Structure formats: structure tokens, C-alpha cells
């Protein structure tokens, strides 16, 4: 087992969150198409979204998007500047801190909000 350092951890998380977000988008479009089938179908979908499973999913989605977004900025900075390449570890930790902090704050707000 190769030791997982900052760069590889970020890469694994970037892949996992990326694939998850694509999966969400496909599911989201399917959900929207269900909603368009009439008032009863609309209400059924909204009720389903209020269940704990979906609420946890929504909070996790926030985390995935935050990490993927911030880490994407780090990668783009690296592609364009030597400055970012030389500070990879620092930037990786900044991504963890920013994405983590916003995830905690945003997740708490979302979890407390009425379903």
C-alpha cells in the first residue's frame, strides 16, 4: 500500500466527489422529470426529499461540491503558475480548511432548516 500524502489524498477525494456530483446530476434530472408528471407526483418527490436519507445526502452533496470546487481552483492555479506548484502542500491544506469549515457551517444550517 503506497503511503497517501496530501497530493494523492486530494486526487482521490477529487475523483470520488467528481463522480458523486455527476451521479447526483443524473439523479437530479430524473427527479425533476418525475416532478413534472403532475401535482401528486410533485408532492411525492418533495416528501421523499424530506426523509433522513435525502437530507444526509444533501449535506454530503454540499461537502462534495465545496471540496471539488476549492480543489479544482488549486489544480487550475497549479496548471497556470509555478507559484502554486511550489506551494502545493500549503494550498492543499488551505483547501481542506476552507472546504471543511464551509461544510460544517453550511451543513449545520441545512440540517437545522425545516425539511
Amino acid at each position, binding site marked *: *500500500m*503506497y*503511503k497517501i*500524502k*496530501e*497530493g*494523492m489524498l*486530494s*486526487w482521490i477525494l*477529487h475523483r470520488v466527489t467528481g463522480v458523486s456530483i455527476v451521479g447526483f446530476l443524473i439523479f437530479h434530472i430524473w427527479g425533476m422529470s418525475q416532478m413534472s408528471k403532475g401535482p401528486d407526483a410533485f408532492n411525492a418527490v418533495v416528501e421523499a426529499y424530506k426523509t433522513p436519507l435525502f437530507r444526509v445526502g444533501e449535506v454530503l452533496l454540499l461537502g462534495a461540491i465545496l471540496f471539488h470546487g476549492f480543489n479544482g481552483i488549486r*489544480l487550475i492555479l*497549479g*496548471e*497556470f503558475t*509555478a507559484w502554486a*506548484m*511550489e506551494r*502545493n502542500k500549503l494550498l492543499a491544506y488551505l483547501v481542506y480548511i476552507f472546504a471543511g469549515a464551509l461544510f460544517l457551517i453550511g451543513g449545520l444550517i441545512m440540517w437545522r432548516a425545516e425539511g
Partner: protein
Amino acid sequence: MEVTVDIYRYDQETGAARFDRFVKEVDPKDRVLDVMMDIKDYDDGTIAFRKSCGHGVCGSDAMQINGINRLACQTLIQDLKSRSIRIEPLKGMKVLRDLIVDMDPFFTGLERIKPYFIPKESAPVTERRQSIAERALFDDTTKCIMCGACTSSCPSFWTNDAYVGPAAFVKAHRFIMDSRDGGNDQRLEALDDKDGLWRCHSIFNCTDACPRDIQITKAIGELKRYTVVHR
């Protein structure tokens, strides 16, 4: 100081892999290679690994030590900060025996980028002049000893050994950024390829593994920008 050394063993004929454990009394300032030579000399002479100069120049003894690719001859026991040492062959290449791997995919990638000087014009009467600033552009990538620690630390290489690989990119950088060299178009063909530069996801394992501290991912980034601009 007593350390436990677990060494990967592989027999190609039977296809059986295992770890052999040796408990050794060592000096913290011993290098991993010293301990391995001691084991080979006094405990088990059948252990196979590559070493040549033993001083971090030839690049023969790159191996995975406690989960990171490094040179056994450059790694002090005290720097591992652990009393258990786990030694495995380089990842992503076929193991031939114990710690010896088939380096062919590594050298195939290297050959693709033409790792030699291709002159721009016929040789001048005097030397080929180069300014200090021009030389500085590729100073970092001249340090490569081709040990393979970077290429075999790369997840992109683990899943696809046709990937040109970090070591070849370092060599490509060394010649592409050289003002005297004229073979860039030929090299860019190998770089701007499905198995080329764009499989690099800036994972930085290569930079972490390099025993010569070459900023490999940074060099690859410079090549990416160069390729986008010049091709």
C-alpha cells in the same frame, strides 16, 4: 537499536509472494541499504535486489520503503522514524524476483521523448553559447539519475504502463527548455498524446518520491503550458 525488517519475496517460477522477517541490531545512522546488505551477507543470501554505487548516484536501488519510493542507499534508519521497516519492489512494474522489477515500461516511455540532444543547426566552429538565465531554466531537471522512483510512484502509471511517465517528462523538460536544442517538435508528439502529459493529475507523488528533490510536478506543469502554447 533493534529493528524489524520485512522484505518482499517473489519467486517467478512458483508465482508465490511472501514477506520475510528479519530482526536486526542496527545503528540509527545506518542506511537501509547497509541493513539489507547485512541481511544478504549473514541471514539470507538468496534475497535479490539491485544496487550499484551505493551512494545515491547510479539510481539502481530505488524501492518502496515504508510505503514511499526512495533510494535504499540514501535513507537513514533514523529518518524512517519507525522500528519496523517494510521493503517492497517498485509499484506498477512486473516483479521479476524479490525486489527486482522489469524496468522496460520505464525506458520505453523515456525513449519516446528522445532523451538526447538534437542540434538546431550543424555544429558551430566554437562552442554553443548559452546565457546563465537560459541555463537556469532547466537546471533542476538535469539532476535526474533515472532511478524510476517517480514513475513508479504515479497512480496514472500504476493503471497504465504505456503512460510516458514523470521521469521521461523530466528528461523532456531538460531538452525542451534548452535553448541549444532543436528537437522540440518531435518530443511534443510524444507529450501531446493520449499516454502523454494529460494523464498527469498533479498528484505530486513523483515530487515527494524524487531522491534528488527535483520539482517534477512543477516541471510537468511547465511542459503542459509549453505544449499548449507551441502546438
